[in-house]
């Protein structure tokens, strides 16, 4: 704005004419030169066009140097463990938000790098499992099953684990962990109060109402998270996110599959046994510590919410896992999925060998995935060791491997991975309403139009049937 003031002032104060002309010409020339210079060469993914085509994509000239790896804070131990296991490989670790909650940090940065033609990281971890929806079009990710990685390795990932990574048969990323939803519950309290673990949603609802009257203050779930729809709506097979083509989505959230779950949640919120808070809010940790009887949620809730000093910090021997409740009449059991991070390999990388080695190590079975990983590894051999280690730790009240392994194969495939973030949409459309006391049922039409609008803004064709 200072600019405007100065410009106006300059106009009103007479100045030697010659100087003004010279200045104006100079500025104009500079402007023209810059605009002309910047106008070209800004095609997406440009910059490394001089390389050779190999392994199914155009590779940049290879060179030696440190490997640049972007991770979120949770994945720092993975990089540290790799550095320990491979002391002669130099890693340049960059910490970022992991793109969590649809923050789009990665996309923002990659688009800037595309413009400048330099700066891309070699390997990236992302907590959002819809990255492929834009990375493939932007030419940012390299296909992994076209020669870079053997099918013997890729075949070891759990069934469906690489779905969010696959476009037209090409695998563009590796899944870090599986995040299928299960029913977490406090076995000690359930036993003490003589409750049965519910196997159907109506049973779950009844128990929730019973808890509200018999043990007010205790919870059977929560609806305040951005990923709430990926727990309840996904498990209920609500067609909110059916990706039917590269740029096509079907959204119909006023059908019975959605309304039945919305009304269940409304009933329990009203009764008081369903919290309006998010599990990672400071208020939740403070208010609900020791008050969680049941909590439907992803496989990583165990390490990230219950057995976490910064979370609920529930003592050893209380928490157990059951399969997600089902609606009566559902043929094959279904559940949802909350994230489960991805590892991406940059197609612009100049250190492909090192990058592939890193990816193979970090997702495969090793000191990290077997012991340190907070979530259920997507790489099956690692998952087996991980589960055994979880059992050995003695934290859980009963065996968690059976329900987790089962749930891993029950994620409903009708919920896809579009470019628009379902979490961000739920957060801005539904969560404020829940906070102010509106029912989810009353907000379903708003949810429908918000999903449609965001999808269309990203270039999707939206249909409702």
């Amino acid at each position, binding site marked *: *704005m*200072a*600019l*405007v*003031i100065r410009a*106006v*002032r300059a106009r*009103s104060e007479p100045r030697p004419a010659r100087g003004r002309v010279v200045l104006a010409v100079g*500025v104009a020339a*500079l*402007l023209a030169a*810059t*605009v002309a210079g*910047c*106008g*070209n060469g800004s095609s*997406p993914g440009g910059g490394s066009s001089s390389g050779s085509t190999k392994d199914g994509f155009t590779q940049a000239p290879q060179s030696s140097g440190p490997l640049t790896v972007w991770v979120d804070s949770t994945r720092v131990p993975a990089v540290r463990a790799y550095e320990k296991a491979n002391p002669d490989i130099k890693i340049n670790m960059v910490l970022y938000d992991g793109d969590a*909650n*649809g*923050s*789009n940090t990665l*996309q*923002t940065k990659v*688009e800037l790098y595309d413009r400048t033609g330099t700066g891309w990281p070699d390997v990236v971890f992302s907590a959002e499992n819809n990255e492929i929806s*834009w990375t493939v079009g*932007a030419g940012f990710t390299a296909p992994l099953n076209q020669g870079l990685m053997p099918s013997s390795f890729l075949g070891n990932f759990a069934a469906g684990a690489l779905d969010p990574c696959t476009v037209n048969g090409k695998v563009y990323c590796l899944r870090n962990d599986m995040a299928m939803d299960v029913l977490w519950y406090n076995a000690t309290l359930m036993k003490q109060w003589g409750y049965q673990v519910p196997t159907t949603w109506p049973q779950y609802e009844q128990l929730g109402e019973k808890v509200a009257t018999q043990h007010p203050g205790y919870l059977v779930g929560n609806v*305040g998270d*951005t990923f709430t729809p990926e727990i309840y709506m996904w498990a209920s097979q609500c067609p909110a996110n059916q990706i039917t083509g590269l740029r096509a989505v079907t959204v119909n959230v006023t059908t019975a599959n959605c309304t039945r779950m919305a009304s269940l949640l409304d009933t329990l919120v009203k009764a008081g046994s369903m919290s*309006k*808070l*998010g599990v*990672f*809010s*400071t*208020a939740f940790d*403070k208010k609900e510590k020791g008050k969680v009887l049941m909590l439907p949620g992803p496989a990583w809730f165990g390490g990230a919410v219950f057995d976490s000093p910064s979370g609920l910090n529930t003592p050893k021997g209380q928490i157990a896992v059951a399969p997600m409740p089902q609606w009566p009449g559902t043929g094959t059991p279904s559940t949802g999925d909350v994230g489960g991070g991805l590892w991406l390999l940059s197609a612009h990388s100049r250190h492909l060998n090192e990058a592939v080695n890193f990816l193979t190590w970090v997702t495969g079975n090793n000191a990290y995935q077997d012991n340190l990983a907070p979530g259920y590894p997507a790489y099956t051999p690692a998952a087996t060791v991980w589960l055994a280690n979880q059992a050995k730790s003695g934290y859980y009240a009963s065996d968690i491997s059976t329900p987790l392994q089962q749930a891993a194969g029950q994620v409903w495939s009708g919920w896809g991975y579009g470019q628009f973030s379902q*979490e*961000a949409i739920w*957060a*801005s459309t539904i*969560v*404020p309403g829940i*906070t*102010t006391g509106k029912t989810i049922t009353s907000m379903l039409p708003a949810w429908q139009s918000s999903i449609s*609008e965001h999808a269309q*803004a*990203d*270039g999707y064709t939206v249909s409702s049937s």
Partner: protein
Amino acid sequence: MRPGHAFVAGYLVLLVAFGIVPTGYGIYFAFTNSANYFSGLSNFTAVARDFRYLPAVGHVALYLLIWLVTLAVFVTGLALVLHQLPARRTSRLVRFLYYIPGALAGAASVMVWLFMLDPTVSPAAPLLRLLGYGTFGQVVQEGHLAILFAMIAFWTGAGGWIVVMYGALNNIPQEVIEAARIDGAGGVQIARRIQIPMLRKWIVYMVILAFAVGTQLFVEPQLISEASVGVAGRDYSLNQLSYDFAFQNNNVNYAAAISVELLVVSLVVAAVFVTRSRFFDAD
């Protein structure tokens, strides 16, 4: 070449590199499409049809209204009160206190507010509870945002202006005040008939700058959005929408169209204020 030229040369280089050239580049983007062909006003009409555009315009307008009015009223009022303070030391101390929040960089001062607004960690928690807000989500409800952002902006920006206004008040010749007093004017009348009219240009200057900064609202809603994991403040302001167009929808041209709109609005408003207040008239 006069020495003056040497002094402004450094500034001129920066002005061209980081002010004029990016502006020109932005204007170029606003009138071209992704294939770099001239596209007339199509970027502007497409942006105006986006579902997030009108709400964002409404948000920014409401925020500006609240902020500019409070800024003009409170800054002038506080500066006048400060000027009346008889004790020199108190005056100096109060001026310093006013100025402190402004010394924090933009994002840092918003971070302070993130804590202030969360009842679980806020030192003002009893007050928030008294108002009926027990969680961060309740505090940052949609309807509260314009007021909250105006509060944050006032807290971070007003102190500096109070100090400026205080300086301007000191510039009013003592004889004029003295004459008014002999004519029987009290403190309020002096303020209303002498001081405020003579401060007019400073107030206009402040409003023009504050308007331009205000239309570019970005840091406050963006940080609130991050802190509330997207519950409040996403696509709240025009600048955020521009940012989303550029980096989420991969459309720099739409983003530039919004930026150009903001530039034009700021220029027009500045021009209106400048001509109406006879800003550049010699006294």
